[in-house]
């Protein structure tokens, strides 16, 4: 692991709204190219219109393979998954065989045209051996060679499953993801519930048709889910520094036909929102919060494959959280709501203390909310 550049560039003062921050956009999982953005220039030198990858399940079934060949692949893939046992769990809290086998079923689900008719994943090998004619040809969305390659990548290279199939099921959404974009986490789903609860309250009616911001949107998960909660006039601005994330989020927004509701803008945190100070009804964010010195010890799927830009939160992981927190005080309109995801109890407390000391007058009703694993995960509150 290379030394953290983030640490070198760490900003000491929390009051700076626009900070210089080195960032990494992983072109692929083997090499990372650092890209530096100037916070003052509004246009990004690297900005180009990228075409995001199409998730496996949306591709045309233009490949095919015979059933015996697929069976052979399935047996190989099953035994590869089984050979893992619980070694990866012990190593770095990675997947065990059971989980990998479940993922294998999902890979089949996504890559077979009629998976339920031909290759029912729930049935044991004997069942489809018996009931299927060997000469039968199965339509695939990806070549058989590619299936071998993908599964090897999954198990041997620990490439995240979501990158293998190009999508992540998140809440009731299926979001396109690819290398360079953080895979939205199950924990983050809860932010949507938190917002939903706020919107349901009669006193917060105005927020339903207000302007919301999702900072560091990644795949666009939060922006899309909240865009679907808002009223007729509600809008979400989703920002991200990474051009890959912007492209993918834009694609996902279009897939859910929310172009008129969610506006994806490239830039660092509040930078693309310059003219909106004091006007936002809500701010949500899942910013990078992993302390830099934890990066090297991360689970291989995360450390080796996911974009560091979306993970590394500086020395104690608080750089971006504090930055966003300060920004929230000035960008939220009175009674505006915020919810941020953190690394756990320590960061939650830190954030609450920080707000208490520095922006006490402008923030109220601050609370810490735990995720389903019981870890204090979110800090929420309102602008006074």
């Amino acid at each position: 692991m290379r030394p953290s550049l983030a640490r070198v560039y760490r900003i000491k003062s929390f009051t700076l709204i626009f900070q210089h921050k080195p960032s990494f956009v992983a072109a692929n999982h083997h090499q990372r190219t650092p890209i530096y953005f100037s916070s003052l220039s509004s246009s990004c030198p690297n900005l180009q219109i990228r075409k995001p990858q199409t998730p496996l399940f949306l591709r045309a079934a233009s490949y095919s393979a015979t059933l015996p060949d697929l069976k052979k692949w399935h047996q190989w893939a099953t035994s590869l998954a089984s050979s893992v046992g619980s070694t990866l769990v012990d190593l770095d809290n990675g997947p065990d065989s059971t989980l990998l086998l479940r993922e294998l079923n999902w890979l089949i689900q996504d890559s077979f045209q009629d998976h339920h008719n031909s290759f029912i994943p729930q049935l044991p090998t004997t069942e489809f051996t018996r009931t299927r004619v060997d000469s039968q040809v199965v339509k695939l969305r990806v070549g058989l060679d590619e299936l071998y390659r993908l599964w090897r990548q999954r198990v041997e290279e620990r490439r995240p499953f979501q990158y293998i199939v190009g999508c992540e099921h998140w809440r009731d959404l299926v979001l396109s993801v690819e290398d360079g974009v953080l895979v939205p986490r199950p924990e983050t789903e809860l932010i949507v519930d938190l917002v939903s609860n706020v919107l349901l309250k009669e006193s917060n009616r105005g927020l339903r048709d207000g302007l919301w911001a999702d900072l560091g949107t990644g795949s666009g998960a939060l922006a899309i889910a909240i865009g679907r909660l808002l009223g007729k006039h509600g809008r979400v601005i989703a920002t991200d520094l990474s051009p890959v994330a912007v492209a993918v989020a834009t694609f996902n927004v279009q897939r859910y036909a929310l172009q008129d509701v969610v506006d994806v803008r490239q830039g660092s945190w509040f930078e693309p929102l310059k003219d909106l100070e004091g006007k936002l009804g809500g701010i949500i964010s899942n910013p990078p919060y992993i302390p830099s010195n934890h990066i090297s010890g991360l689970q291989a799927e995360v450390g080796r494959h996911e974009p560091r830009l979306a993970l590394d939160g500086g020395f104690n992981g608080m750089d971006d959280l504090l930055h966003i927190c300060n920004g929230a005080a000035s960008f939220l309109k009175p009674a505006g709501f915020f919810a941020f995801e953190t690394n756990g109890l320590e960061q939650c407390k830190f954030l609450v203390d920080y707000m208490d000391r520095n922006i006490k007058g402008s923030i109220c009703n601050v609370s810490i909310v735990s995720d389903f694993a019981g870890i204090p995960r979110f800090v929420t509150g309102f602008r006074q």
Partner: protein
Amino acid sequence: MSSLIYKRLGAKSLLLSQNRRTQGHLVPFIFSSLSESHEYHGSIQNRLVLASGLSSFLHTTVESLSGSNPDHSNSSFYGTQSRHSLHADSKDGFCASGYFVSRRNISGFCSTLHPNVRSLTVSYQSVVTSRWFRLVGTQAAVEPSTSDELTMDRIVANQWTILDENENDWKSHAAAIAQSIQVIKRRLQWKKLMVRLDLLSVQLTKPDLWEDPVHAGKISREHGSLLCKMKEVKAFEQELLEHIDLIKLAREENDTELELQESLKALLRMRRDSKAKELEALLTGEQDSFSCYIEVQAGAGGTESMDWAAMVMQMYKSWAQRHGYGVIVVDEMPGEIAGIKRATIKVEGEYAFGYAKAEVGVHRLVRISPFDSGKRRHTSFAAVAVIPISGDGSTCVQINESDLRIERFRSGGAGGQHANTTDSAVRIVHIPTGVTATCQNERSQHQNKASAMAVLQSRVDQLEMARQAQMNAQHTQSLTDITWGSQIRSYVLHPYRMVKDLRTNYEVSNPDSVLEGDLDGFILSYLSSCLDRDEDD
């Protein structure tokens, strides 16, 4: 409304077209029937397609007595929708129901009907149908009899010898059918059914009924369903009596032997059919038609019994698939070495619960363990639970969000950005009852939560129903049936090979076929033994 044209090949009959209103006074009896043309030989068959104003389709084959005098065949056929009814041993055959009415008889009318009625338990939805039934209901007060006043009870009382089906003796057929009808009535709890029907009829006439639409809907659904069952049995009785009349008449008038044979054939069909009806009468419980969850839990004994639990689960998956049910794995906890600790599947389809409920209890396996290097004989246990998924929201217990504790299942480590995992399993605990549910097979936490919530709702509902049933003496017996502890079936693979149900003593000597999902024999024998025992009380 539906009108139809019936053209007879034999040119003896006339064309008949009727609408419902005119039929209203013409027709004393209505039979819902189903025809299977391939069973009829030597008869003239006409295919007839009918599209009624209700946009229901009937495609059926009308059979008429060949060589009969013209009076016999002035028939009208009135059809309603075709429907699919599920039966344990039936292939997905085409079923149609219709009312077949023909004019001729001592009483002025006679009916010939196609007896393969398989829909005792399916409620009619057509408005026309239920209206028809009500019409009949008012006329059915007099006990039906033949021209020489032979009633159902008298047929049974005559104690005619029941011979083999192949013996072409009408008395034997009639006695067998009458006996079946008795069984069916017993299974339907006939007297209670009549009382209940009267009660519901009274309630339906109350002017303020629809002020509570949910309740009213329930009442009217139950009424329709019971009425339908009652009519079907009565129609079947009537049919029997008419065939007896026909046979007697044929003898008196020295009709051709052929005609007698036709009636005998019809009786034989009825006799075979009555067996199927007996089975259908088994699934008349309120929840029988629902989908269900089937849960299998490994007993003590480690890998050996976890492997057995997996075999049992597989048996149910195959069974469900054979019946065309949808199968979804909701929750599965694999064993460390082999098999499963427990698993829950959702079985979707009509009557899934009605059949699967017969499987509740402990299943025992005796075999040489493949996991024992010493090749010793092992006994393993797996427990099976079956929970109905109520179709309408009306029976649901209201679960408050605040009574729930939702936990990430099998979580470890810091979570959040630290972990990239596709495992988003959740466990939901309903604090007041302690009922829990887990789901890990969905691809998002949100979906896992929704799925677990559905399981939890069903479990809490079941608990509530059990509680209510406890207060109702009638159900005390069935309540003890669903408790876990009881061992219901033994699967022996060594030293001999046999599967035996300990409740019914039903047994088969081929365990493989049973483990591949051939469970119907066990299920039906249990269901029939259950209901027949109930009636003795």
